[in-house]
């Protein structure tokens, strides 16, 4: 029996690294990318550009947190881009057309996006529609509703204090929106690591039947996760509205793939049960730095697409190579 112990102890035990479960490769990729860009441009490595990148990833970052929850339980949410547009239009309509205070608009927007998540959650749990289908359907339907609010027109111009949330750099560094993203990420990280509800997501994603047998309310948690994803997509919509000082129903087209990509690049497994917020943050940063950096080095847009593809594979493949070396 002694043999077992020695043998099994020889595998690496938990260290700080395991907090990033599976994200070490992407982290290495991110660092390599940053070093390359620092050397090849004189503009990349500067406080201002760093803050720009943070600004640029707020929307993706907030949505990716919700998506991480969803993917952790083994689901998927294709509706986030449309829900973001819905939230923007609801807020814009309430504030600029119905003429209510913008605060009310924000509340309505979050309610609308939460409702959309609730519908997804109920479809998935009560009617057993696969998450892919349920959210694909919502992606189409919610986009239609967002368009119908103003018959496809955009709404421009919000109060100054509102747009300043995305502009004013408090203490010369962080805008309120970036701060909001960082707060969302931090809270989500704590939640996933230290709240039992957070660990339940891992259990459900690992094996829903095991979770059910262990007494976890799988259906309830599932519904709440989709609601959270909806609300976070709505929140991202509000941030985007502040950033653009306008709302339009075509916002967020195709964001679902970006968001899922950020989460998966960050090492969260699409089959659920493994991964986390740390990895997602790295995934979001890889996408953000890549887009920012390629613009700075002024690569042609077509070549950019090729490079983006290669970098994504390398960032994720690094994980495999690292594992091989260890093994």
């Amino acid at each position, binding site marked *: *029996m002694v*043999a*077992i*112990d020695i043998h099994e102890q020889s*595998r690496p035990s938990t260290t700080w690294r395991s907090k990033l479960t599976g994200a070490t490769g992407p982290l290495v990729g991110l660092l390599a990318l940053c070093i390359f860009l620092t050397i090849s441009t004189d503009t990349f490595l500067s406080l201002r550009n760093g803050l720009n990148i943070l600004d640029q990833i707020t929307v993706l970052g907030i949505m990716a947190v919700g998506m991480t929850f969803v993917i952790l339980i083994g689901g998927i949410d294709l509706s986030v881009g449309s829900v973001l547009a819905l939230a923007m239009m609801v807020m814009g309509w309430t504030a600029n057309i119905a003429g209510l205070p913008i605060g009310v608009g924000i509340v309505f927007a979050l309610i609308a996006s939460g409702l959309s998540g609730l519908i997804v959650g109920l479809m998935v749990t009560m009617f057993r529609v696969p998450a892919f289908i349920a959210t694909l359907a919502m992606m189409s339907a919610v986009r239609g509703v967002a368009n119908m609010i103003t018959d496809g027109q955009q709404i421009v111009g919000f109060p100054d204090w509102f747009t300043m949330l995305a502009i004013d750099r408090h203490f010369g560094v962080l805008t309120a929106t970036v701060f909001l993203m960082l707060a969302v990420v931090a809270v989500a990280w*704590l939640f996933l690591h230290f*709240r039992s509800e957070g660990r339940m997501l*891992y259990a459900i994603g690992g094996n829903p039947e095991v*979770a059910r*047998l262990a007494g976890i309310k799988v259906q309830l948690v599932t519904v709440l996760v989709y609601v959270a994803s909806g609300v976070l997509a709505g929140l991202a919509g509000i941030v985007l509205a502040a950033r653009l000082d306008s709302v339009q129903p075509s916002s967020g087209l195709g964001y679902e793939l970006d968001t899922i990509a950020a989460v998966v690049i960050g090492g969260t497994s699409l089959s659920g049960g493994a991964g986390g917020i740390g990895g997602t943050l790295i995934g979001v940063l890889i996408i953000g730095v890549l887009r920012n950096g390629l613009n700075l080095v002024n690569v042609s847009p077509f070549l950019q697409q090729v490079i983006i593809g290669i970098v994504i594979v390398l960032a994720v493949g690094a994980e495999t190579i690292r594992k091989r070396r260890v093994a």
Partner: protein
Amino acid sequence: MTEPVLSLRGISKRYGPLQVLKNVDLDVYPGEVVALLGENGAGKSTLSGIIAGSRAPSDGTMTWLGQPYAPAAPRDAIDKGVVLIHQELQLLPHLSIAENVFIGRWPMKNGMIDRAQMVHRAQEQLARLNLHIPATRKVAGLSTANQQLIEIAKALALKARLLILDEPTAALGGAETEALFEQVRKLRSQGVGIIYISHRMEEIRKITDRIVVLRDGERVHEFADSSTPVRTIVESMVGRSLDRMFPALPEPSSRAVLQVSGLSSPDGSFRDVTFEVHAGEIFGIAGLVGAGRTELVRAISGADPISAGSIRLEGMELKLRAPSDAIAKGIVMVPEDRKDQGLVVGHRISENIVYANLDKLGGRWITAGMKRVFAEKAVAKFGVKGRAEQYASDLSGGNQQKVVIAKWLMREPKVVVLDEPTRGIDVGARAGIYDIIVNLAKQGVAVIVVSSDLEEVLGVSNRILVLAQGRQAGILTRGEANDVSVMELATI
């Protein structure tokens, strides 16, 4: 006697037209261990599931400490103190051992999970079962035996008033079983009611106070005294008398079919193993849990790479890069873990049997009829209780195991490797499987049997290879081998 913790009255369960349980009554009193026995598919696991709230009965009532009891979900049962150790492992491979042990009930401090406390307490639970793996380690990659022990630790961590153990020892060796029994005795003395399900008769006699026998979903017998002769118990289970367990072994030929020399694994789980198996010989491999038996036979069947040594089949050296290479040469393996290696549980029995025989089904065009005929033949031949078109997930554990064996033996191989072949198989059917093994040998097949059940290896093997911590401790002939000589080699 005191009031029972749990009473069942007239419990029935139907799956469509199939009646799995009929009118079962059962009382469990505090401080006693009730054995629940029955053939594969008798309904033992179904009954456990009903008690633990994971399945709903079609009929009947349950009473918990005098109160009506109808759990709507496993949670309700756990809250009352009904704890079930499932027949199949229910672990989350990506999470740490500690998190698995306390799944859903993690120790909290100030609204946050108290990780230090969790690890500490999990480590204590493991220690009670003589398991000294760091509780922070992930479950993925642990051996089946260790996973089974974690599954048990998970149950022991809950405050149980009724504990149901559904074949907890099927994957365990003698020492682990003993550690488990110690815990069971302790709980019994604390007044916990215990239901114990197993196909290992010697255990039943060792640990249980009372025996209830199910047959085809009906309660057919109760023995108030666990010292009832095994023969009588088995007869009431199987419904006929079982004269013997192990058939007479044929005399192996002198022709070596499989020659293994100096075989070592890259991760050192076995080193420098040399033996040969003759045509018509049954070659047993024994050892303690973790001795590397599974790794050795996986390497022989091409599932894992080797770092040194050679494998020869009928004198020809084999270079095995994948199981397909071994299979093409006529070496097949019945793997240890039916759920993750043996069966696609979500698919039909017929499909599962066909997957291992795609090339055998005459040419490369396969019609539904051919599949069905082929699968029905296998089902009949190996006594699977089920129809070829059923989904594997709907079979009882023992019947699933029979499907795995059937799937491989339909290939008519030259070398058959069986890793824990009778895991979860009832006594009656086990005798049937031994007959199959001996018949294979009679036809000149070389058979390798790996088992943690010492009686089994001793009963069916012409010779026995004993592994100890990955080293070849020795090879015993049938004459030399007995409990003592094998254990001596296994523990050096």
